[in-house]
């Protein structure tokens, strides 16, 4: 086996490793992470509200995702008679895909053996990410349109306005980061933070704007306007049931994972820790896996934050939500760009 592998050309090894990375990342890392973040959400919410939570399936309720998955597949799928069938089917898939594709450009570790620990090391990483993230609004808008029903329609309209508004704040907030780094490649961003000078320390305002915009982009409380159970029943997925509903649900968690991964890379130094030689590219496979572990650990911190905030804060009113986006964060992000530009010009300018 090893002989056969060593006899392959480096290019063939690269191809095999790359495909392996994709398969492992999707089925062994992202899928369980999405499934278990749902369980974590339910357990943590139960804990915060002093309830028991799901604890019946398997030890500590750990087999809950399997039970849920089976149930989603076997339940009857209602399709409203007046729905636009093609779009009605398309919407859940469209909601799921962008989050997964975003993960492709995230460097989740330094090196595994001789291969880089990133699925596709694009030199325009962040542009690609923003391009794909803005696609996620289509799933929700399509769902609202296809359902041909009042509540989903209102939910879809609301969410499109909300998501595009916060996309601007999000896009502007990272500009100072790239002024400092001087590269759009996400691996270069991590390289810049290797020494422990994490960008959360250098650009705290950018981080705060990005974090809040991340909540709005993933439609999480306190910005879950598109769903708003008390006003819109279920919002854009009111008419959905069975597996189609599950895809929306899982898509939301996948989007949370993707945006957390972006925050880890942009502001928390990615796979690095500023001690014990963990900030240099790994020499051995064990070290490489440890750095992947560090990355996932940081990511879980953000997932925990997402869940915690959901059960701590009430929902904003729609006018407040738009006001914060346009009248606070956009001017703040602009000011942050100008201040960073002037500072950088004075210290590094020609």
């Amino acid at each position, binding site marked *: 086996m090893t002989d056969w592998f060593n006899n392959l*050309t*480096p290019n063939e090894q690269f191809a095999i490793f*790359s495909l392996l990375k*994709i398969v492992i990342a*999707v089925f062994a890392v992202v899928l369980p992470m999405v499934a278990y973040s749902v369980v974590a959400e339910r357990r943590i919410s139960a804990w915060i509200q002093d309830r028991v939570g799901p604890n019946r399936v398997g030890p500590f309720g750990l087999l809950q995702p399997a039970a849920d998955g089976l149930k*989603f597949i*076997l*339940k*009857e*799928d*209602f*399709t*409203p*008679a*007046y729905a636009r069938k093609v779009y009605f089917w398309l919407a859940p*898939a469209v909601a*799921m895909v962008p989050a*997964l*594709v975003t993960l*492709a450009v995230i460097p989740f570790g330094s090196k595994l053996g001789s291969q880089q620990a990133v*699925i*596709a*090391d*694009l030199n325009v990483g962040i*542009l690609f990410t923003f391009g794909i993230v803005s696609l996620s609004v289509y799933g929700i808008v399509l769902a609202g349109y296809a359902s*041909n*029903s*009042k509540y989903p329609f209102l939910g879809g*309209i*609301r969410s*499109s*306005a909300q998501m*595009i*508004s916060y*996309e*601007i704040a999000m896009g502007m907030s990272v*500009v*100072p980061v*790239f*002024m400092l780094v*001087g*590269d759009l490649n996400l691996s270069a961003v991590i390289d810049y933070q290797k020494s422990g000078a994490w960008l959360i320390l250098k650009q705290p305002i950018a981080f705060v704007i990005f974090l809040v915009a991340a909540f709005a982009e993933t439609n999480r409380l306190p910005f879950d306007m598109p769903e708003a159970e008390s006003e819109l*029943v279920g919002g854009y997925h*009111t*008419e959905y049931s*069975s*597996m189609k509903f*599950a*895809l929306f649900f899982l898509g939301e968690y996948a989007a949370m994972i993707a945006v957390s991964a972006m925050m880890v890379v942009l502001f928390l130094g990615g796979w690095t820790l500023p001690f014990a030689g963990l900030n240099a590219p790994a020499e051995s496979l064990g070290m490489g896996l440890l750095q992947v572990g560090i990355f996932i650990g940081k990511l879980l911190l953000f997932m925990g934050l997402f869940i915690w905030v959901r059960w701590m804060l009430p929902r904003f009113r729609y*006018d407040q939500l738009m*006001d914060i986006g*346009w009248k606070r964060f*956009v*001017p703040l992000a*602009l000011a942050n*760009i100008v201040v960073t*530009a002037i500072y*950088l010009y004075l210290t590094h*300018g*020609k």
Partner: protein
Amino acid sequence: MLQTVRLPRVDRTLEVQTILLFADAATPTPYAQYLLLAVMAVMAVGFACGPLILSAILAPRKPNDIKQSTFECGLESKGDPWVQFNVQYYLYALAFVIFDIEVVFIYPWAVAFTGLSFGAFLAMGVFILLLAEGLIYLWIKGVLTWK
């Protein structure tokens, strides 16, 4: 008197460029990365469609009028689902188009920033001021205030 100006003839035979996935025996080109991205996209689509197809095959189907009716909190749905909605949504969308495009212009400038001359710094300062001016204009006009 008008003279005919002869433009130099441009050779328009298409040069067919092969896209190389590998520069040499051991170095993949950027195109290889885009190919991997495409593979990832296909995986993601499969990841989304697989469960849908599975449930379409396995799930029972017993439709009836009540199940298929439009949701309306237990009442019969009245009127057109295409309710009139606030024009404000459109205004936000228009503002979004303007700002999103301008943000895309800022990106290359930000990346090249530390190597730029004073002229470029000033030019971009003016551009950002225009952006700010647009925002202030919208603000004063009340476009950003939800009514």
